[in-house]
């Protein structure tokens, strides 16, 4: 019996908490999950923008009805109209104060994909809920090279405390593998590129003596074995941290095990090769969207998140004539100038998103449709109006046609229902069955 088998046989699976429901059935059934009726990959992505939206400019100019008439903020989406729906009346009530007092930005961020209430803590007992992308990722595990990708443009973080006594983990992570383990996002476009397409020349040279695949496997065997032994010696509380280590390592082990199934793709033509984190935020944002598009195009993953900026971001936009900070501006009630500036910032974010969508619309997928046609992309934030810090009627755009299952070109109201209802309807389309509820969901959103 080989040592690898021995480790498996020794019941590693029993020691690692069952974070994932990955099993042979899902892997084999990969043909019907995250796949369109025409057999193309179906992607699910979430893009977050901070501090709510300047309401008057955000929502379409007509009443919720069939025809979509874009308001000022969404002008960049005009030519993509048939691919998008604007949905009003979606709420994240677990982001409201409740008994937790202030901290709307931290909660907005933490609740957005989880639909759960974040435990108010500056450190101990961090707890929110599994995020919808991770629910999808764990179910789809094995159908693509990466179960999911997490991206963020917050390469430099504010030091000191975060929002009103909430740990910064809530604000800088959108995606939660479990209720207690955030998925750290990648902020460096170069590193992301290397994950997608292998090491670039410069890194390759430094790695002239890399380990072979089998050496890597035996290294993983060792650390898993070691961690498993160590786990027995630890106090209960410490085991949680080691469990994160174990489950993350097993993830990688599986990925390496499937390497032959998912060869590293060639870099698509005309792709930029990023060097690192650009100095200008706008450039950084563009590059991260480019990387996301590449990942979707090459089917590296079917589940992704991009946090453009953590909620509460006080970034100034001097290049578009806004010297004030974003968060600061959102708190100027009824002052026309501030309103306009917040609208301009919303537009700035949306322009980047529109550019990304256009790119996806121009890429032809395996079934002849565009990648955008075969995607479901939620664009939005966890705060409605930045001035009010409300968490109902969130600014939400659903882009992509879900392989023909989403009906774009519309503005409609969900009434007043949990955002998680929308998530469930998307998860259904991903071919993930038997999820009855998620977060605070009360049903499905059938109108999409």
């Amino acid at each position, binding site marked *: 019996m080989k040592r690898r088998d021995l480790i498996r046989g020794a019941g590693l699976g029993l020691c690692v908490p069952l974070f994932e429901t990955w099993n042979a059935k899902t892997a084999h059934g990969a043909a019907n999950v995250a796949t369109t009726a025409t057999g193309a990959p179906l992607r699910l992505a979430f893009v977050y923008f901070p501090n709510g939206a300047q309401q008057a400019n955000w929502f379409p100019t007509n009443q919720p009805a069939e025809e979509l008439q874009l308001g000022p903020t969404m002008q960049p989406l005009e030519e993509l109209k048939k691919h998008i729906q604007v949905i009003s009346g979606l709420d994240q009530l677990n982001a409201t104060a409740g008994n937790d007092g202030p901290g709307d930005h931290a909660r907005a961020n933490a609740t957005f994909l989880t639909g759960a209430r974040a435990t108010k803590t500056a*450190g101990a007992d961090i707890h929110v809920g599994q995020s919808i992308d991770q629910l999808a990722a764990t179910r789809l595990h094995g159908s693509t090279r990466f179960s999911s990708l997490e991206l963020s443009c917050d390469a430099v973080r504010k030091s000191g405390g975060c929002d009103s006594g909430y740990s910064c983990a809530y604000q800088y992570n959108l995606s939660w593998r479990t209720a207690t383990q955030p998925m750290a996002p990648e902020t460096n476009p170069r590193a992301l590129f290397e994950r997608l397409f292998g090491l670039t020349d410069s890194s390759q040279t*430094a*790695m002239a003596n890399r380990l072979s695949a089998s050496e890597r496997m035996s290294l993983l065997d060792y650390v898993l074995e070691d961690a498993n032994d160590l786990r027995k010696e630890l*106090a*209960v*509380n410490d085991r949680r941290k080691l469990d994160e280590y174990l489950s993350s390592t097993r993830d990688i082990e599986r990925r390496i095990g499937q390497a032959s199934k998912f060869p590293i793709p060639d870099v698509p033509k005309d792709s930029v090769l990023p060097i690192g984190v650009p100095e200008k935020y706008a450039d950084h944002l563009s590059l991260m969207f480019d990387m996301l598009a590449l990942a979707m195009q090459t089917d590296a993953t079917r589940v992704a998140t991009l946090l453009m900026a953590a909620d509460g971001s*006080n970034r100034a936009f001097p290049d578009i004539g806004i010297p004030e900070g974003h968060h600061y501006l959102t708190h100027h009630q009824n*002052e026309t100038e501030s309103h306009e500036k917040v609208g301009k910032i919303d537009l700035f974010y949306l322009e980047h998103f529109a550019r990304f969508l256009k790119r996806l619309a121009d890429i032809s997928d395996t079934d002849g449709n565009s990648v955008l046609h075969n995607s479901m992309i939620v664009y939005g934030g966890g705060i409605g109006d930045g001035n009010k810090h409300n968490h109902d009627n969130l600014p939400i755009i659903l882009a992509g046609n879900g392989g023909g299952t989403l009906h774009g070109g519309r503005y409609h109201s969900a009434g007043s229902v949990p955002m998680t209802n929308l998530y469930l309807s998307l998860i259904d389309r991903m071919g993930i069955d038997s999820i009855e509820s998620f977060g605070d969901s009360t049903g499905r959103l059938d109108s999409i």
Partner: protein
Amino acid sequence: MNGDGIIALRGVSFILASHLQLRLPVNRAMWPRRIPFGACFAMFCLTAFSIHAADDDSSLISTQAARQILTQYCFDCHADGSSEGQFAIDELLAESDSEEVRRRWWKVLKNVRAEMMPPKSVEKMQPAVREQLLHWMQRSTLHLDQNNPDPGQVTLRRLNRTEYRNTIRDLMGIEFASEVEFPPDDTGHGFDTVADAMSVSPLLMEKYLLAAEQIVMEAVPLQHRVPQRVVVAGKAMTAAQGKQSAASNSFYSPIDVSAKFTVEHAAEYDLELDWEVDGSFDFDPGRCRVTLQLDGQDLWTQELAWSADKRSTDRFLRALPAGEHQIRFQLEPLVDKSKKSADIRFEIHEFRVTGPTDKSLWTMPVGYDRFFARSEPPLAQLEREQYAREVLEKFATRAFRRPVDLPTLDRVTLIAVDGFTRRGQSFERGIARAMAAILASPRFLFRIEEAAAYETLPDFPLIDEFALASRISYFLWSTMPDERLIALARSGRLRQELPAEVARMLADDRFRETSQNFVGQWLQTRDVETISIDPLEATASREEYDQLREQLKLHFGDDRSQYDRNDHPSEIQRLLERYRELRNLRGILDGNLRRDLRRETEALFYYIASQDRSLLELINARYSFLNQGLAKYYGLESLEGEQLRYVELPDSSPRGGVLTQGSFLIVTSNPTRTSPVKRGLFILDNLLGTPAPPPPAAVPELEQAAAAFSGRQPTLRELLELHRQDAMCASCHDRFDPLGLALENFNALGMWRSEEAGLPVDAKGELITGEAFSNLSELKQILASERRADFYTCFTEKLMTYALGRGPEYHDEIAIEQTVKDLEASGGRFSIAVLGVIQSPAFQRMRAKQ
């Protein structure tokens, strides 16, 4: 109270083993949730006595006495149906003991200690009474037991990015850019050392694995003997004069360049030329002859024609005498420049000399002896395996910061043996692979702690000395313990030599970086490098600037040269000069200045810490660390040079202490104006340790109130005064507004101003605790005298949070109180705070593993 009742913490860890404490069991489950008044009182007496029966603590007042104090000072607002701030102390008194109840008492204790309660408007509490009450709360409500102190829960800590980078540097001898390669660490309680906030995501794990491989392959020599290798880059081949080099040359320009290199032995060497023809996409008729000569003899010559891209390496074996040699490169064009249609160039990337080819002349590679004790591995298999074990035991002990257990050593040895036997790799390559496994192991990435074997307190044992060595080292150096700390731990002498070791570590250069990590996060100094701020808006000169630009444009038209001249009519000249002034202001906060502002605060802190001066100088120093740029920025007498240095501040200068430093003043401002609220809150949070309660939802914004000033731009002081007319707003704003407004003489850029919105700045105010001041310097005086204990407490808590990797807890109270007393007695010396943290039960002990 004289403090005798509390065992001095100094050395407490060493004597505790001999203390046996009699504890009476109290069946808390039997307590009703609500109990009648009298019963409650009796119960409290009982609890107090039962727990402290063995204490000879004459200064502890009875619960009856405590109740009298509380009745006199607190009940008016917080009892008998009154519950200001949603708090009723009579209800709290009636609660039976629980963690949650203790946390509520802890809040009361902190408010009483900081003299926030009772408020100054109510009867003044005598210091002696306050002391009695505080002591009673510690003992009888928080149930702190100094003879069996709860160290709290420190979750398993992984190395953060900084610690990882430094540990790799010390362990492997190479620099690894973890801040580029790893995602940022999540923080908690304001620090990136807080264990609970740091997780291991699949992304990070992937990066850990890749890094382990990359680091080992870069740092560990894979052979025990290597040939000498000289690399002459193309750009290093130059002509005696001019800028020509062999790096890249057109086929149409002749060139003759050379370089020298040296070989050690008279022997045969392997020579390689790595070259490339780099042509434009379109054909070009250019041709040339290239020649490489070694010591005057042709080595290589070729006639080349257009090729879009052709790279090649040519090799030669040559016997060379020992000593210096010359390599010469010539390019001779064969087609006239006039024929050139596109572009074609010849490039030499490198000329490499490797050798001698005779292996017996090879030498030990650089860094070999860092990892390998012998100059070469033994040949016999058994000896080889035994030696591999020795090498890996030494390495793993260093990497894990504690002795490696046998099963682990067996496993890593097996990895190495598998490499150099079954896979036919070199001995060193096998070892390197095992080392990569060690660097990816949780024992390296996490700080594994064990209890000391000789401990006698079963619930809260001392940590063993290896764990202690790591705790101190990561606290003071942000890196692994050095050989000396490990040696002391091994011989069990670290605890007894702790003060001397701490002194040694504070004097070491490694402490400098930690001091930056700490202060950079505590005072958010780091953020000054990235925060957005608009100098023109911040100085209310944007409009003027735009107008000037328009005016000058009208006058000069598109003739840019006019802007540089100084012979304009006086009216225009005046406008131009003001324009230049504002243009400079606009770009003033460049990268250099921001970096210097950060360094100034870091330098002040490091000076106080490394010279073991009083922490109060953080508030009231009459010196700072400046260079040319900073002195100019602060409007001080000019200095020369980039280097920051100690400068005594003139009496006339308002600067001195962190509150007057650009870093603090900028990071607490909005991008376009100062924020007295942010500044005030910052002082409460980070200097006084008395954070204000959070604001209620939907507070009207300041600017909204501007309507009341009928068109006139009000000052921030006026706006805040208006805001405070609402009693609810005032209850909190009274705490921080006066602090922030005292700093209004500094604009959002941290520059001095005497006016704001056209009115003279009024910096006077009064603290919530009653001390009045008329300007910032008096406020600083108050912070460093009357409110000194608050500052010491706050500082100790911050340092403790950073050191322990968890937030302060109520059971840390005794240690914090003792440290503050010691700081008082020592005049606030930094090392006292460090020792206070290091000798606290929280640092010395752990909760027994369950």
